[in-house]
């Protein structure tokens, strides 16, 4: 059993995107607790990959492949988690690029970095309307709503979400980012956190859910 969990961890660290789902299926068949497989296997694996990326030992595509491998195994293991139990995550993040804005690369990187640091990430894509952000935040019971805007003309869209969101719930935190966004601007519109790159986005998210 311990072997199967270690093997899953290794599979994330080796970016075994194509074959990891079979490993996960086999682990379930062998009676491995899916929660243990996720927390001690996948999460540990991706953490190691994330640390290597942080130290500059591996390149971004390797980090992304690690995250993809984790996702593939999660798709098998999560449905097997008994009802009422939940995998422990660092928190749930809802992320998207705001309406009228289609820049997605930065947003995708932030998603990947958050996922590889134990967050559960729901990615709404690009050109996400304010009402969609609000609806999904409610549905998904997200701890954090994260918004990306890359243009001066679409930055104000973030404020459009924050005001009603905060009115509805004090608990949900908001973080924002994207090239033209600054710390000052983030504060001005009432966001709880801002970061200029994907690695510090993780620190900010961790601080917000603490």
């Amino acid at each position, binding site marked *: 059993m311990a072997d199967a969990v270690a093997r899953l961890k290794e599979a994330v660290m080796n970016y075994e995107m194509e074959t990891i789902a079979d490993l996960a299926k086999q682990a379930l068949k062998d009676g491995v607790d899916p929660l243990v497989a996720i927390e001690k296997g996948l999460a540990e694996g991706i953490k190691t990959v994330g640390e290597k990326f942080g130290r*500059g030992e591996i*390149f*971004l*595509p390797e980090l992304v492949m690690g995250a993809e491998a984790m996702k593939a195994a999660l798709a098998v293991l999560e449905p097997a988690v008994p009802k009422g139990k939940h995998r422990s995550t660092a928190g749930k993040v809802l992320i998207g690029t705001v*309406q*009228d804005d*289609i820049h997605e*690369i*930065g947003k995708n*990187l932030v998603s990947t970095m958050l996922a590889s640091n134990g967050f559960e990430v729901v990615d709404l894509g690009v*050109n996400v*309307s304010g009402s969609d952000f609000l609806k999904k935040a409610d549905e998904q019971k997200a701890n954090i709503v994260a918004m990306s805007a890359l*243009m*001066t*003309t679409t930055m*104000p869209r973030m404020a*459009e979400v924050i005001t009603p969101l905060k009115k509805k719930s004090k608990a949900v935190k908001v973080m924002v980012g994207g*090239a*033209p966004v*600054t710390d000052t*601007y983030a504060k001005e519109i009432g966001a709880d956190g801002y970061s200029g*790159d*994907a690695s510090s986005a993780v620190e900010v998210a961790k601080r917000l859910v603490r």
Partner: protein
Amino acid sequence: MAYGIKRGVRFQILSESDLDRIHWGTLHVLEKVGVQVDSVACRKLLKDNGCDVDEKTRIVRVPSHLVEWALEKKKSSITLAGRNPKYDAKLDLNHSYMTANGNGAVAVDFETGKRRPSMKKDVVNSSRIIDYLQNVHIHWPMVSSTDQHPSTMHLHDLDASMNNTEKHIMYETGVTISDAKSLTEMGYIAAGGEKEFRQRPVQSCLQCTYAPLQHDAGVMDASLYFAEMGVPLVFFGMPQPGATGPATLVGSLVVGNAEVLSALTMTQLHAPGAAVIYGMGNAPLDMRTTIRAGGSPEHALSSAMATELAHHYGMPSCVGVSATAKQPGDQAILEYYTGCAGPLLAGADLMCGIGLLEDSSCLFYEQIVIDNEIVGVISRLIRGEWADDVTLALDVIEKVGVGKNYLAQKHTVQHLRSGDHFMPELIDRRSFDSWSADGSKSLVDKARDKTKWILANHKVPALDSDTQAKVNAVIEKAKKPMWGGETKRA
């Protein structure tokens, strides 16, 4: 002397057969993979002309013959006119023109050195600097007027530019039909009417395609409008090798080419003969820092190869140049030198552009002046050399003879005057003693001095009050509450 940079030297990266393979590869991608077209109007246009359109995925497969048809309709020679005709840039595949970089959102205050959101006064000042400098030929509003109402920022950018340079203005802010309408109206006003604008377009618009293999609805709807109204367009692909395009530069060129050619096809179907410039700026994503590597050798090479491809099609090119440096100085110079040298050596027609740092995000006024010098140096490198009676100078060699010098020769003076020897303004060639006596200034210090001088001394004739009133009216009309309900998505 003709406006622009004369090109006498050209280096070649791709062979004719490489270019053919890229072209056939692109047609294959367009037929087999297709492109996602979010604009309803564009999908209809393509469907009516025999494309295979999937309304659910919005993916359109474009047959080769249609692309080849569009390539025949394109214009090979386009003139981007200046408010002052001495600044007319003739894109004739034989001259190169440098443009300013555009649309950053941050500026470092020239007085206080503080990094802050950009303002309309930054557009005013940078426009005057561009107007003055000799080696920057086409203007872009370099930053956004973020101190103006969000719905009219881009119009204020254009207003500030129109008033502070007589050079041609290219913008990239026409991303909805209503933006396109206001911008076009301002262009017509600047030219003195629609007919005048169509004859001498004093403004043009650059539009980005959406890598990989997509076209934004608002951008394409606006593009069709611009094409119809006679506003020249650049379609600018920008897959990032390794991220939104294959890691190989040629692979990313195929992706970008498929985007540009499909945009060209839609435009020519809608407005046959429209002026379209071939654009591309493929800078890789730096895989350690996750920053787009503007100014990298790969960026320069991609821009150079895109130029070769554009010329293969008989189209003028507009290719990307930028830098990731955070402040003016050594890194910015290294990146801009690399970025400009690649495409200029390959014969790029337009390069966008110089003067912004942090990969087209942050404006330092003095960087514009530094980049002007960089372009000057490279212009000399590519001017070309030739052997004729004048350059061989056999008569002078005979006259001077053995063991004397050429200082007191008319031939020497003539060729200094004609630009045979590049005369730097910022590069300091003085002796150590005179340099240190003059304050041991760095190149950046000297650029700041020159910037100060330009701002204090260079005047640009403003628009007359009649024209200005019309411009103001357009801006006033466009002002709307931010969430007025216009969405670009179909």
